[in-house]
């Protein structure tokens, strides 16, 4: 029972929140509203999965929001300038990947702690975004070929949901079923043991941070397509939510470890919470307060899971 609670407790709490809103406000559990929550979840979850991949290698990527904003601005500038959609999309993804690789190199080659390196990258990305836009957003009636990436639907399911499913499934298989994925996880779990076992841990850290940047770029492209504009701070408010999604995700399924399914469930829960609070008519600051509590609470919970593990370890000798 205790094992069940520690594994599924917060997921059940999320379910309880969803049920609560469904009962409290009739507008919540409608197909239209659930589709909105799912669409919003997709931006958040894709960004958060990047953060999770970096965290799996025990590195923090604090630059995701600024990198996403920069990638959005670059994509927006190219779409705005009438460039083909695929070029604009590739440039956005490329910009994200480049920032991620820069983070990776700073951490592995220059040995700058990721906390510092990614804050630096965030500042640079922010500066570049303002440089490109001069503070003015790219706005316009953009080609449907671009906006359709986020706004269209296929087989009655919004494209955003397809993107989410595709990205999440790919990452899930990568992390859990490939050699590179298990090397990534091993790097974060026990870097020295992994290195001694022949795993190229520096490369894995670059991969984790690089993918984090790439997914920030992907989020940016979808965000820009969704609101058909690109502003230098457009992903800023996703930052805390993405971290919260990963941390909350770490409290479920495999407690104490960043994981794909947990991140997805947590992202949905957070978005459902925000949506439900608006439907209930709660004041705007309530959402921030709840978010803060969730972050601290989920870290406390996963820290408890880690302490339990450490306690077990102490009971039964050293490695």
């Amino acid at each position, binding site marked *: 029972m205790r094992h069940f609670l520690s594994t599924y407790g917060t997921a059940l709490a999320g379910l309880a929140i969803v*049920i*609560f*809103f469904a*009962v*409290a*406000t009739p*507008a*919540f559990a*409608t197909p*239209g*509203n659930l589709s*909105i929550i799912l669409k*919003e979840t997709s*931006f958040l979850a894709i960004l958060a999965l990047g953060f999770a991949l970096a965290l799996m290698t025990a590195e923090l990527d604090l630059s995701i929001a600024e990198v996403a904003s920069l990638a959005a601005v670059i994509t927006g500038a190219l779409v705005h300038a009438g460039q083909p959609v695929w070029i604009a999309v590739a440039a956005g993804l490329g910009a994200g990947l480049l920032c991620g690789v820069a983070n990776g190199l700073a951490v592995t080659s220059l040995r700058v702690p990721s906390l510092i390196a990614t804050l630096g990258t965030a500042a640079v990305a922010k500066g570049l975004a*303002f440089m490109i836009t*001069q*503070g*003015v*957003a790219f*706005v316009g009636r953009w080609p449907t070929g671009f906006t359709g990436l986020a*706004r269209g639907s296929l087989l009655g399911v919004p494209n955003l949901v397809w993107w989410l499913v595709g990205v999440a499934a790919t990452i899930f298989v990568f992390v859990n079923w490939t050699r590179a994925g298990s090397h990534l996880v091993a790097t974060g779990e026990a870097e020295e043991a992994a290195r001694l076992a022949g795993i190229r841990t520096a490369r894995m850290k670059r991969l984790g941070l690089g993918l984090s940047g790439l997914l920030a770029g992907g989020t940016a492209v979808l*965000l820009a397509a*969704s*609101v*058909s*504009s690109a*502003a230098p*701070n*457009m*992903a*800023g*408010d*996703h930052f805390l939510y993405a971290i919260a999604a990963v941390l909350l995700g770490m409290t479920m399924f495999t407690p104490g470890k960043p994981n794909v399914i947990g991140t997805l469930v947590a992202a949905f829960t957070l978005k459902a919470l*925000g*949506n439900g*609070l*608006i*439907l*209930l*008519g*709660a*004041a*705007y*600051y*309530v959402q921030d307060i709840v978010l803060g509590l969730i972050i601290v609470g989920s870290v406390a919970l996963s820290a408890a899971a880690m302490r339990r593990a450490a306690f077990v370890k102490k009971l039964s000798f050293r490695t």
Partner: protein
Amino acid sequence: MKKMLASLALGANFVAAALLPTAAHAFDLVVIGFQMSSETHARVANAASAAAKQKGWNVSVLNSEGSLPKHAEQLDTLVQRKPDAILIAMGKPVEAEAQLKSAKDAGIPVLTVMAGTSAHTLFDIQVNEYKVGAEAALYLLGQMNYQGNILTQRFDGNVGTRIRGKVLDAVLSENTGVKVAGTHTMARTQSWRDDVRNGMQALLLKNQGQVQGIWASFDGQAYVIDDMLKAQGVKKGEIPLVSIDGGVDTYRRIADPESTLTATVAIPFEEMGKQAVEALDTIVVKKQPKDSVTAGPYLFLDAVLVDSRNVKQFMGN
């Protein structure tokens, strides 16, 4: 199971009642402040919210935190909630066109304040930023007898402040006796006060003794400059400092002989919030035609130049 659901529903209603200020069936208004951390956005939203509560309406206030995706998400969600009306302070109707359209399709009237017009909203309550900009620019030049050097503190990240800067440029192009000795453009939005202080400090040092006037694109910037000039021993009127927005702290400074802030163009943010609620009351509640409030896409309110001569009138409210 049924019992559990029922008690859950009861609990939900209880929490909902705690979160909601008034009972159901009242007129349901949602006010969205595009960036509540910006004082002017908050002033409009808070004034509107207060006016609506006086009418016994049910008001909730949302904050888009300056983020367009968040703004769009909130509008999408509100279309699901179907409030009786939405009031947006300083939104972005061009960018949020899709969301505003779905609100219109859902039959939710949307009114905006200082946001710009849209085919999907009732109208936009505005002051004429071009007029405001001209008023401030000409006042400053007048204080300098149309001679000398000025420093300008700009911000291009906001439509209003950008227009004010452009109008200043137009005024300067016709009045060549006044030269711009230095310009600092605020780049940051979070720690902008530091940004303004550093930028202006450098310009003042570089042009020591050669500055006859300072123009700031909004009052918050002027406060920072005022504090800096005071610390350097500059007295009121020595270097006229003119800006735009108005507000309690601005009026206090204009009236204060120690302060160097000379004048502002007071934009009636509170009045705009109140007028917005009045307009919704007229059009949505009392079902009067929109044209009885304003014919065009804008409802213009007047901005007033405030300096030491008339500041007392503004300090009362």
